[in-house]
């Protein structure tokens, strides 16, 4: 049997809610797949689409954005900005041939360790189902490996 695909997922967390939820999940010894790697920011409002594109271009297969529930942002309303940026980015990614589903936004309060662990587990499976994104290879390809030209030269003309 072939080895199953292990996606790499970058998660962006809010210092006040989802990062604490991750702490809580740990303290409660909840188990979730090791495919996710979390980055802490002060607020989901710090979420810059650049970071998502960066992670995807560096080889991540999926991105999980997390923030406080609507109305409960520790900075009052910044998570709504995160929501809007997320919705707008999702409309752009497909034009790059990247499934919008590879980027997901979930709300998780500091108390919701269980929820966060569950969301992570679900997301890892969703990305596993989508398969690898492999953007790093594309960069290699475009950064001018000679073979790139040769490959196309044999392929393009009829």
């Amino acid at each position, binding site marked *: 049997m072939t080895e199953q695909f*292990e996606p*790499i997922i*970058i998660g962006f967390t809010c210092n006040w809610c989802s*990062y*604490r939820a*991750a*702490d809580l*999940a*740990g*303290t409660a*010894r*909840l*188990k*979730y797949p*090791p495919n996710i*790697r*979390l*980055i*802490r*920011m*002060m*607020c989901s*409002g*710090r*979420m*810059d689409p*650049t*970071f998502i594109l*960066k*992670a995807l271009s*560096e*080889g*991540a297969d999926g991105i999980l954005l997390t923030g406080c*529930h609507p*109305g*409960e*942002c*520790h*900075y*009052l*309303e*910044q998570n709504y*900005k995160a929501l809007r*940026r997320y919705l707008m980015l999702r409309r752009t990614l497909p034009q790059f041939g990247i499934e919008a589903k590879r980027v997901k936004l979930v709300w998780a309060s500091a108390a919701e360790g269980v929820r966060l*662990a569950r969301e992570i587990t679900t997301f890892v499976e969703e990305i596993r189902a989508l398969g690898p994104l492999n953007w*790093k290879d594309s*960069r*290699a*390809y475009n*950064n*001018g*490996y*000679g073979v*790139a030209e040769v490959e196309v030269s044999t392929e393009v003309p009829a």
Partner: protein
Amino acid sequence: MSAAPKSEKERVGVYVCHCGTNIAGIVDVEDVALWAKKELGDDGVVISRDYKFMCSSLGQELIEHDIEIEGLTRVVVAACSPHLHEATFRGACDRAGLNPYLCEMVSIREQVSWVTTDKVKATAKAKAMVASGVERVIHNEPLDRMYVPVHPDTLVVGGGIAGIQATLEISNSGNKVYLVEREPSIGGHMAQFDKTFPTLDCAACILTPRMVDVGNQPNVELYTWSEVERVDGYVGNFTVTIRKKARYIVEADCTGCGICWEKCPKKVIDDVFEAGLGYRKAVYTPFAQAVPKYPVIDTETCIYFQNGKCRACEKFCPTDAIDFNQEDEFITVTVGNIILATGYDTFDARRIPQYGYGRLANVFTSIEFERMCNAAGPTDGEIVMRDGVTKPKSVGIVHCVGSRDNRYNSYCSVICCMSSLKFAHVVKERTDAEVYEFYIDMRTAYKDYDEFYQRVLEEGTHFIRGKVAEITDAARQPGEEGKLIIQAEDTLISRQRRIPVDMVILSTALEPRPDSKEVGHKFGISCSANGWFIEKHPKLDPVATMTEGIFIAGAVQGPKDIPTSVAQGAAAAARVLCHIGQEQIELEPVRASVNADKCSGCRICNDLCPFNAILFHEDLMVTEINQALCQGCGTCVAACPAGAITGSGFTNNQIMAQIEGMLMFSESNGMTRVAEPVAA
């Protein structure tokens, strides 16, 4: 395009904590440490150690030693969550003379060992996270903690028991307090009550001395019949504008003798203090022991203000203290800290039509009943039905009216069980009526509460566990005529029951003030979905808010009883006094700042800051960020289309490098570096 490379090479130390077996049990910490030295050497890792307990003094000394002897310029500690020990390790760096913000923690316990079962994968993930920490820390910049001087004066908003407590604590310590109260007198809801549970001592007897103290405390500047108009500035230095509504009384001349309200011909129903059960005059003080003693003229009902005649009060006032031409005053004060104790409102029982409040005469709300049994109240403490004479033969008390009900408020109002028990006791004490309590769960936590419950049980009150479905006057069975029938399912015997009574008391829910959102915005703090103000931390920081220098106390943060409100008032005061004592406050240097040269004045960011830290200079057409007001969320940093805003502590370079680090090594090739493609 990757994070900007650093010119001079940093000397990075990596410390991998075993945390006993908490980490070492799953993550091969020795391997991680060795790997970091080998694979991240090119990135500046010169020392990489693993140690049993990094947070122990020996662990910390290890770091200090390496900084001093090995000349580390950056430190990465792979251990537990930064929320536990970031301060610890930053402290260690500080002691060794390294700027504390050049230290990064990566959480390989909460985020790796505790949540992962596969040891190989756990170790690989730990490595990736260490790499991200190293790549990030290289881009960390030394940050200086910010200090702002603290103005010793304090503003307390809300003159209920929580606000009074806070005011007294602070003023008694010798510091000035401005106490602002919306109503003509301080005292709040507590002043309306008759007795307080569980001790049953009279509310007025314990409250009024405190009110008087406030009135007499020279350090307190009391502004009743006043509201906060606007708040500018930041912790240590707020500028507050107070609107002092016109009383039409010259306070300097008024002795509070009371002749004016005796003589006033206009009698009006008092639906604030007396909850609509009693009367007051057009010129009035809400209650006898009001502080301050000066009355207020209610222009809505005053004959003179309505049709220009009368002026009886003016005629009879012995000190000519009436001034019909008085106007609202605006007072601006500077304070270092603010305590919000604006309390709660009660649920409008009309919203549950099947309970008949407002339709069925003898359905009362808890506040109405409080006034009724108050010796100073409209019935001189007599418990009577609406007709004002008949004593009830039976009384039904309904819990959770508007609480624990998804149609209204899902939360528990905390105090209703106890006040309902108190009502039952009072009814028993003053009448020979049968008392029926309808409850969902009986919640009598805290000292002596359950004992009080037992006592009421012994007094013979009937307890029916079940939510009341309906209160009606439609008699169906003999014995129901002329009565109020309470229909409920008794879930203990799982039977529908119809209890006919003469009087019903609805224990109405506590609700946030209707204007809590606006107030929150005015002070730059946030409300939860249901409108209670959010504390900085639900357990460890219950009276602070996300906004430095703004504290909350009492029911404004959520339903609570008097003891807790008092405790919170004192707690908030303690926090304020701590600030005052420090004379200056240290602020986290995680702040945003604008590069004026890069700012195009597009104004994209101008509406993004709920703390009003972003201001636009029309003349220069550039945006600036007030460092002290900025809370460091980074939203404007992420929004700036020109990349003109930097967020210290979480710069683009730091985060981009962190991302690179996490993806630099691939598990598929045994966590060795993925070669960057070379340009042909």
